[in-house]
């Protein structure tokens, strides 16, 4: 048993906070934010280079910056933050001590050292192979080594999380089942184990190949296994940020899942059907059959998509129920209008929910449709899609929960609360713009990972339509907006941690503690007409956009 001196009681939530757990959360969150800053600046330089009127970087620096951008934000920022979420959802939410904090620290340092090594490899200039590092293009050995170290560190973090669940259960720090948010974090951690194993299976041989110890890596096999890591890790993000949505709705509004059973089942679907994500990267590859593609992108039923569609109703639904219980019952949307839009945790969370669904989610399904992929593969549509999921969805959700972690874990008040209110809107609108304009350019055929769409140095010439240039310009402007939002976030977070006033008891008053919602199954609490309208709009958009793309496809050259 841990001694009482290792705990403090949170004055506002009454949670027992294990100090070693708190330290680990702090370290991981801080590392995450640092790499968000680095990766974000690389991202801005990429967007400014792709804006033809600006064309900031020379070609070699562009490809270097793009590689670093992908690694630092898609991998390092997100996984570090997810470690913080795992420790929070286990030790803190379960009132438990954390398992083996030393292992947690070992994991942390491995991740940090790995991330630094890979960044050095990229900055040395001989590893501009993009985040995906498709063979037979080769990076320096330490490029792969850093990623492997980082992944093993993350695996240790997952083990600490699992261990903490076991300890909490044995020491009976909670009653009944684990909370939904912890359940969501558990799904993320289980998927992470699968993901990291896939990464090891492909990156360790690739590392050996880069040292001439293995003679050949088949490029198609590499791609198939690499994406079992590359896209499954996006499923970790989805599980984690959906858990964050539920957590924010609960902490800020006292919202409670409409049905524990449905929400948990939806999380479970992510585990059971996650592999389909890796399949949809292989839709226009040689040597893979249509049967394989169709089955593996859908498992005949699209159940992982269904999981997200369920959360898309249950998260806003739980908010609507909580708001209506507080008396915001006029009309269909009073509950939404009177929601705490000035609270950056809530606004960030709700924007993340809407944009993940409408922008990232719908387009992901379209991209993952066997034949439709022909008109989109490797165009800017692809990064457009995943900036909708990972930036507007995951990153914004993680930013939103930071505003709750700063008073709760760092015990500091936010500096610049007024600017903090603006931050989610600034970043969210920027991210939505990046996403939409890149998809617009992709629909016009603009290639991703491409330094010069004017083809100045090419032997043969090609002109993209003027609209494509317009899209790239708008994308650049959106990137500036998002970067401003990102810089603001980093300044507020770092400033609050360093210079924020120590939290006194009043800061989080009026937040959670008691459940405002009635019992399950009582008809009165379950009227969610506003959510039904939102969901209906979403579904209509989804169906229309799906058929629009089949129409586009029907216009290209017949292929057999």
């Amino acid at each position, binding site marked *: 048993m841990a001694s009482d001196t290792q705990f403090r009681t949170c004055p506002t939530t009454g949670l027992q906070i294990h100090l070693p757990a708190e330290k680990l959360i702090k370290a991981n969150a801080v590392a995450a934010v640092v790499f968000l800053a680095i990766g974000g600046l690389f991202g801005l330089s990429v967007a400014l280079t792709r804006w033809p009127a600006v064309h900031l970087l020379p070609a*070699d620096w562009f490809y270097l910056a793009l590689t670093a951008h992908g690694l630092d934000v898609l991998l390092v920022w997100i996984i570090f933050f997810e470690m913080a979420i795992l420790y929070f959802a286990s030790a803190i939410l379960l009132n438990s001590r954390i398992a083996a904090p030393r292992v947690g620290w070992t994991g942390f340092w491995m991740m940090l050292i790995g991330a630094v090594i890979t960044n050095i490899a990229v900055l040395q200039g001989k590893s501009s192979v993009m985040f995906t590092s498709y063979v037979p293009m080769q990076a320096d050995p330490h490029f792969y080594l850093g990623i492997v170290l980082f992944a093993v560190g993350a695996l240790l973090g997952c083990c600490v999380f699992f261990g903490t669940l076991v300890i909490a259960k044995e020491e009976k720090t909670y009653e009944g089942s684990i909370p939904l948010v912890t359940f969501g974090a558990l799904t993320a951690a289980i998927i992470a184990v699968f993901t990291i194993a896939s990464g090891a299976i492909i990156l360790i041989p690739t590392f050996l190949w880069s040292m001439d110890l293995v003679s050949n890596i088949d*490029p198609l096999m590499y791609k198939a296994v690499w994406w079992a890591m590359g896209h499954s890790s996006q499923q970790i993000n989805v599980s984690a940020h959906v858990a964050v949505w539920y957590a924010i709705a609960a902490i800020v509004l006292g919202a409670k899942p409409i049905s524990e*059973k449905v929400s948990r089942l939806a999380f479970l679907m992510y585990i059971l059907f996650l592999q389909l994500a890796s399949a949809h990267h292989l839709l226009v590859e*040689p040597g893979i059959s249509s049967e394989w593609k169709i089955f593996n*992108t859908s498992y005949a039923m*699209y159940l992982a998509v269904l999981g997200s569609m369920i959360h898309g109703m249950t998260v806003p639904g739980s908010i609507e129920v909580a708001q209506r219980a507080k008396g915001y019952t006029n009309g269909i949307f009073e509950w939404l209008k009177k929601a705490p839009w000035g609270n950056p945790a809530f606004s960030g969370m709700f924007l993340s929910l809407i944009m993940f669904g409408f922008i990232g989610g719908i387009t992901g399904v379209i991209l993952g449709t066997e034949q439709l992929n022909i008109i989109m593969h*490797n165009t800017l549509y692809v990064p457009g899609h995943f900036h909708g999921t990972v930036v507007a969805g995951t990153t914004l959700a993680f930013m939103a929960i930071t505003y709750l972690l700063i008073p709760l874990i760092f015990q500091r008040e936010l500096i610049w609360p007024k600017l903090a209110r603006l931050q989610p809107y600034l970043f969210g609108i920027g991210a939505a713009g990046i996403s939409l304009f890149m998809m617009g350019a992709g629909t016009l055929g603009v290639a991703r990972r491409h330094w010069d769409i004017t083809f100045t140095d090419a032997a043969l010439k090609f002109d993209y339509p003027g609209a494509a240039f317009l899209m790239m310009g708008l994308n650049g402007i959106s990137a500036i907006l998002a970067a401003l939002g990102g810089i603001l976030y980093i300044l507020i977070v770092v400033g609050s941690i360093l210079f924020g006033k120590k939290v006194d008891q009043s800061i989080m008053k009026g937040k959670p503690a008691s459940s405002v919602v009635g019992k399950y199954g009582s008809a009165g609490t379950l009227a969610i007409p506003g959510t039904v309208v939102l*969901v209906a709009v979403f579904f209509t958009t989804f169906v229309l956009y799906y058929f629009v793309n089949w129409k586009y496809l029907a216009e290209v050259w017949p*292929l057999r």
Partner: protein
Amino acid sequence: MAITPPEERIWWNEPVARTELIWIIVGFMWGLFMFFMMIYWHGAGEQNLSNEAYRITPETFSAKTTEMVDKYKVREESNFPVVHPPPGSDVYLIGRLWQWWPILEFEKDQSYRLHISSLDWQHGFSLQPTNINLQIHPGYEMVITVTPDQAGEYSIICNEFCGIGHHTMIGKIYVTE
């Protein structure tokens, strides 16, 4: 709340609200529909990738392409040979650092068996402005039957990053009436 253990210990027995149930059913049916749509398009649609592919060495593929170029070359353009193969024939296209080789000339509404492979790294075949995108691997020969249905000048962009000259990698396909 979502951050505390479920109020009802036996939460898996609680009834599911009708709204949720309807949405789950709608979502599930839509998933089924999207699954069958892909299969339907294989029968009714005109844009489907063949499943034809072979393992091949860069040397063999290069030799086959050169043979075709020698046979059907009609002119040169910017140091690229332009080939005009007969309709229905096997046509070879090489992707390599950093060009698509040779330039092809097709006739409108005629079908060609197009073989594509890479001699070095991975490349992205991106035919513009029609917007057909394929991933080209070294060691694999992809075969698709194309039927250009509009005359004009088309460009093949590379849209898989292939090193520092990636953005200069352009090929051409002409479609004549």
